[in-house]
């Protein structure tokens, strides 16, 4: 019951943290989409570049988040706070997004592309009307991972000055306040699960109908 009391007693603070958390996640995901989806599409044109870019993405993904945040802080332009947090989160999102966009576009049936090209569709039309729609299930899977992952890692940005739900955990640790730690963890987990569920529902609407129907339906 102490857990609930803690929340009741600190509603304004928790709301502030939640808001900050959401805005960080939202910006990070938006920037990631704008940046990494085109990169994922672009590298489908060259095997060599695909290997390079995916290699970089994998390497970044292997860096522990705490140290990546710390490294960002040392860069003069970034410093403590939101900029560093955003850059680090966007870099983390590179792996799931670029990889899934690349694979989604790559696995589209070659004969479909061949037929489309043979009918006179140009590169952009094929990309926009065929490859991207057919890649939506895979791209969306990457997008969901990105959102959930960013929600989690965003908490760690509290150590470089972000005032978000991660702060409940870090402060709870220094003060050894169990209610604070557990509530912070539960709230973050709850947000992640809620976002994933919402995206799951959205995915059903976005995946083209023809990919879902089968013979006899």
């Amino acid at each position, binding site marked *: 019951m102490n857990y609930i009391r803690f929340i009741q007693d600190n509603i304004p603070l928790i709301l502030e943290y939640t808001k900050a958390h959401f805005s960080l996640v939202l910006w990070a995901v938006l920037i990631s989409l704008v940046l990494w989806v085109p990169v994922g599409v672009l590298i489908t044109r060259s095997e060599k570049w695909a290997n390079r870019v995916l290699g970089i993405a994998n390497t970044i993904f292997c860096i522990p988040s705490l140290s990546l945040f710390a490294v960002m802080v040392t860069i003069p332009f970034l410093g403590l706070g939101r900029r560093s947090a955003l850059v680090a989160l966007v870099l983390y999102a590179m792996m799931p997004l670029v990889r899934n966009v690349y694979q989604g576009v790559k696995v589209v*049936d070659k*004969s*479909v*592309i*061949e*037929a*489309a*090209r*043979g*009918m*006179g*569709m*140009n590169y952009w039309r094929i990309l926009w*009307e*065929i490859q991207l*729609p*057919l890649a939506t299930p895979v791209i969306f899977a990457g997008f969901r991972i990105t959102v959930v992952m960013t929600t989690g890692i965003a908490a760690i940005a509290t150590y470089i000055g972000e005032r978000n739900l991660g702060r409940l955990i870090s402060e709870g640790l220094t003060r050894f306040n169990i209610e604070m730690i557990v509530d912070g963890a539960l709230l973050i987990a709850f947000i992640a699960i809620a976002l994933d569920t919402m995206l799951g529902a959205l995915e059903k609407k976005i995946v*083209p*109908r*023809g*990919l879902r*129907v*089968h*013979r*006899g*339906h």
Partner: protein
Amino acid sequence: MIELREVTKVYKGQTVPAVDRLSLKIPEGETCVFVGPSGCGKSTTLRMINRMIEPTSGTILINNKDIRESDPDRLRMGIGYVIQQIGLLPHRTVAENIAIVPRLYGWPKEKIRKRVDELLELIGLDPETTRDKYPSQLSGGQMQRVGVARAMAVDPPIMLMDEPFGAVDPIARNYLQDEFLRLQREMRKTICFVTHDINEAIKMGDRIAIFNKGRLVQYGTPHEILTRPANEFVSDFIGYDRVVKKLGLYRVADLAGPAGCVAREGELPEIGRLMREKESDVAFLVDAHGRPCGFLTTEDIGGMGDEISPQSLMQKALGRRGAFAQREMVLRDALSLMLEYDTEYLGVLNGGDLAGVITLSAIRKHSCRKEGE
């Protein structure tokens, strides 16, 4: 008209050309079949015609215009293209798939809708039930037909077909071939058709181009190729049964003679006399409705035919109930039917009616005569 002049294609990183100094003319309104073993360059040649592959050297002309002068996408919009894997867009309905090229041309919606329905009728699919289906809801044969309809959407004068019926089962393939021949008789499009199946080439082609190792080995009508194979490769490729294959080029109607003697069951006792009167070697038995149900030959009635009971004659005649061929049947199948029924005669049918008779000796003379040409 499509003309290839000294066309060569060497793929990157290879020294042996995939297509080697190929020259070929395909007259307007004809079907030209490229045939040969795999890796012989037939598909490469086809794909160079719509610039899916650019030749290393040489010139390709369509209606005397160098295809390099046209924008590749524009060029392809004007050429129907069908591939073995069909490549229907899985996220688009049948109607949307057929509408792709009309949409590229910017046709108004109403015109596209009409054309889609017209094409679905043409290929034998019901527009009402098929139009809004997705490709995954169709059978293989239906998909292939939609693929052909899609290629014909803007009625292009030229069609390129790369093993279009290669992925469907033999029965559906035969049916699709017949349907396509029927359509082509009306459309008279200029068609390049790739296959590795010599039988399909003989059936579909006005002309056949036989490829081997990137070179054109022989180019001619099916008849020329079967009668005078240019070299050992061609005759091996055709097979030992080339005379029989040639029979696939002609139809029963080409050799049918008049039926001569037709009798009803009651006339069986006098059948010998009737046949002698009509100077006919074969007598057809018709039922009460005038439909043919069998036949007898002079051998059956043993010279006079008077000493054999009408019942056993009846039995014999009815035993050949199946020994009839439609006028459109190819001679090869008629010959097979004769062997099956162990007879030298087949009744010729026009629908349900008796239209004449075809004999083994006529087929034999026909193939000998052609052989000696």
